Structure formats: C-alpha cells, structure tokens
C-alpha cells in the first residue's frame, strides 16, 4: 500500500502532461477544421474540448485511447479482424515461439562460450555484430530468404523474434555461468571435478538469478521482434500489422491502442517470468 501513492502521483502527472500535449498539438488542426466549417464563435473551452475528441488527432487524448482499447478488446468479437485480442494472440504466438527458440539458442551459445575459451574471442564479435544491424532493415530480408525455402506464415516472424531475443540471453547467461567466485571454483578443482561436473554443480545453479533476468529481457526483445516482423509482413495480422494499418490511414487512435496492447502484452510476459523467478529462487533458497 505504501507504494500506491507515489505510483498514483506519477500516473496522474503523465496523464496531465499527455492531456496538455494533446490539446496543444491538436488545437491548430481543430482551428482549421472550425474555420473550414465556417465557425468563428467558438470559445477556448470549445476548442480544447474539440481538440481532445478529434477523429484523427495528431496525438489522441488518453480517454480516446482507453475508449478504443475497450472497444477493440471487450466490445468486439475476438474472431473479428478488428479485435485487438485476435491480433494480440497472433503476436503472442510469434513472440512465444521466437522466445523459446531464441532463449534456447542464447543459453546454448553461452554454454559453448563458457566451456571453450577460444569461442569467446572468435564468436563474441559476430554475436555483437549481429545486433548492430538494424532489425527493421534485416527483417524483410529474412522474410524473403525464408520464403525461398517455403518457410512462410508464422515461422519467419518467430525467427525474427528469436534473432532479437538470443543476444541478451547469451550475454546474461555467460555472465551468470561465470558468476561463481574463485574459491568456489578452486574447491571443485581440489575435488578433481570434471568440467561437466563443475558446470552442473556450480556454474549452472549459480547462474539462476541471471537466468531469470535474461529471460525477462529476452521476452521483451522477442515481442519487439515479432511486432517489427508484422510491420514487414502485415497481411497475416498481429499488433504490428495494426500499427501499420493505422499509420496508413492516419488512424492515430488505432495506432496508440495497438501500441498500448503491445506494451501490456510485454509487461504481462515480463511480470510472469518475474513471478516464476521469485518462486524458483525461493525454492533454491537463494533468497530468505
């Protein structure tokens, strides 16, 4: 309960700034609309009120976005192509598949890098380089190339999600596997433990806190990848496709609604992993 007040204060402040920005950004547009309609007798109050309720504002007001979200989530059939539930599930599926592939790849690479020292130097630059290429430039190429091999539909998007997901997982898990202190490692050496034993009994359990942190970042990155992939290849739907369609037709309210849906999805995934992590670490007795 103690955190409720600061939280509410921040939310209220954001809303206030948002309303102010919406009014300031939309007012000139609304003034043009009034003059086109031949209206000149409007008060400032009229102008502000109308600016916050435009059909195609530059920046929609919070209540407009909330209304759109309600309409597209609860008041629309989930099977409808307008429903955000329909599109959200598409994005979620791509994200989850990409996340599973990406984190498996990321953990696998981390295991290799930690087990073989020469791989650290030879592979890490490539892994880093893979992330310096903007995904928005790479995504269409991945779609086209995979299409050559008859890989279509959800798969190329999951691949793009995995592409963004594996990197933070690799970096996090390498750090996790290397987190045991020198004494804990020396101990294994005095037992003449094999590398595999040292890994299973020391490095792997020691990496648990890093594992859950990596999963959180990886899941959020996978969702970004999925949305970018949907923008690239929008005919199959998804929240990214809604973003693209919205910007195509100047439907700013729709864009913002899709944006918030994506953010909520991401927050839910990260939150879920956080809960799983707390339970697991409690069982492992990492935390009292």
């Amino acid at each position, binding site marked *: 309960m103690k955190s409720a007040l600061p939280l509410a204060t921040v939310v209220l402040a954001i809303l206030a700034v948002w309303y102010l920005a919406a009014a300031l950004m939309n007012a000139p547009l609304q003034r043009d609309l009034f003059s086109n309609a031949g209206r000149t007798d409007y008060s400032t109050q009229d102008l502000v009120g109308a600016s916050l309720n435009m059909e195609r504002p530059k920046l929609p007001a919070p209540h407009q976005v909330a209304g759109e979200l309600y309409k597209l989530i609860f008041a629309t059939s989930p099977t409808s192509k307008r429903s955000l539930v329909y599109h959200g599930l598409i994005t979620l599926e791509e994200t989850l598949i990409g996340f599973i592939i990406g984190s498996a790849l990321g953990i696998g690479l981390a295991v290799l890098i930690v087990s073989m020292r020469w791989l650290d130097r030879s592979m890490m630059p490539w892994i880093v380089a893979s992330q310096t290429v903007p995904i928005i430039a790479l995504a269409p190429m991945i779609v086209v190339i995979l299409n050559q091999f008859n890989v279509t539909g959800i798969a190329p998007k999951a691949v793009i999600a995995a592409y963004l997901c594996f990197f933070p997982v690799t970096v996090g898990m390498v750090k996790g596997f290397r987190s045991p202190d020198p004494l*804990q490692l020396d*101990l294994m050496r005095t*037992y*003449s*433990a094999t590398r595999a034993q040292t890994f299973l009994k020391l490095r792997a*359990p020691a990496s648990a806190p890093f594992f859950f942190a990596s999963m959180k970042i990886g899941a959020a990155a996978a969702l970004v990848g999925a949305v970018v992939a949907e923008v690239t290849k929008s005919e199959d739907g998804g929240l990214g496709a809604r973003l693209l369609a919205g910007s195509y037709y100047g439907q700013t309210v729709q864009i913002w609604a899709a944006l918030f849906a994506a953010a909520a999805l991401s927050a839910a995934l990260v939150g879920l992993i956080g809960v799983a992590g707390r339970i697991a670490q409690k069982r*492992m007795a*990492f935390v009292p």
Partner: protein
Amino acid sequence: MDVAAAAKLKPDGRATRTADVAIEIGGLFLRFDTADGPVQALSDVSLKVARGEFVSFIGPSGCGKTTLLRAVADLESPTSGTIRVNGLSPDEARARRAYGYVFQAPALYPWRSVARNIALPLEVMGFSRAEREARVAKGLELVNLSGFGAKYPWQLSGGMQQRASIARALSFDPDLLLMDEPFGALDEIVRDMLNQQLLRLWDVTGKTVLFVTHSIPEAVFLSTHIVVMSPRPGRIYDIIECNFPRDRTLDIRETPEFLAIANRVRQGLREGHSYDG
C-alpha cells in the same frame, strides 16, 4: 630452507622413512607474471612434513604462505622445484583425493543445504547415496553441527559456516587437511573455541594438517611445527618445534614454554624484516 632446517621436522631426530613423509618440498620457486612485472612469490623453499603433523605457516602478507599451500594442492604451478605428496606429484595426489581444502571464506554453495554442501565432494567423487548420507551425518557430528543439516548457509553464523566447510573438507577422508586462514574472519571468542575443536579433530582423525595463519598465539597453540616465513621474496626464515601434549587446553597459553615459543616466532617475524613494508 636448507636440509638442516628441514631435518628439524623429523620427530626425535630419528631418520624418517619415506612412508612417514606426507609432504616433501625441494628448492621450490614460484613467480607470478603480473601486469606490473614478475613477482617472486616463493624463493628456494624446502620442507619436509611427516605424517600426522600439524604445521602452521606464519608471516605477513606477501610472504607466500598461501601460495605455498596452493602449490601443494596443485592450485598453483611452481616455476621450478619439486613437491611430492605421499610420494606423488600434487597433480596425481589431487586425483587420488588427497586434499581437503578449507579456505579463508567458507565458500559454501548458497543454494545447497548444509548437508548437501558437505555431500558435494562425495557427489563429485561418485560415492553412493547411502555412503553419502552416512558420511554427512558423521561429518555434522564431528564439527558439532548435528541437527543443522537441513539449514541453509545464510541461516548459520560465520563460525558455524566455517565448521560446515571443515566437515565438507573431511567428508571424503583426505590424507591432508589444508587450511588457509580458516578462522581469520572470525572474532577472538569464536576463534578460541574453533581452535580447541580443531585440535580435538586433529587428534581424533590423525590427519596431516597444513595451517596458514596471521596469529602467533593460534600458531603456537595448534602446531607441532611453526614455519616462519618472510616476504619479498617469499621464503622460509625459521622452523620452530612445538611439543605440547596433544590434549592441551587453552590454559597452556599462560605457561612460560608457550610464551617462549611465541617470543621466538615474534622475533623470527621481526628479523625476517617482515613488517618493514
């Protein structure tokens, strides 16, 4: 140190048979190549330790006492010279489970209960489950931690954690117990108690113990021999024999014999220019 000094370690001056020698170190040099240039950690160290001895290494920081212990345990590689443990190289001795190592920090694995920490080396070495359970129970009893097996390290005091780490080191019955300032981080009262317990443990198990310490009273109280080392480069300055009865108590620290040996250690540390830096 030369052979004459090493000879002091033979009990009663009798010729020591090879079978009774636990550790034999000859002309050991060890240099670390650091970013600031080479550091001579050990210089011409020779030493013989008979089976069942309790040998303390004392000296200021940088005298190489920890490095010497680590070299014996095959955790550091000497630049030149020989180390034989039970007639084997440190590498071979390690493979034969000769070393129970206790570090300055307990280094317990936080995700394992105390019992499972003690079982760790047994798991690594492939003991059966029944054997593991029996040895863990025995180990807990040995260090007075019976009833604490299910606890996790963070639930234990520092002294209890270090006792658990001693039980872990002894669980697989190694020939040698190597202890690197095991009680350095503990307060005086806990340290006194643990010293007495360690002495009893040594008496019961008959292990050969190598014990690194900063504390003169601790070294004199525990040891059969005290190796005084001096820094830059790390070398043996003096080896002092200490023949208190095995069932000694803390009271002996008031006796003139005890104070005389403590004085000789202190003098050795001073003459070794130990505290000039």
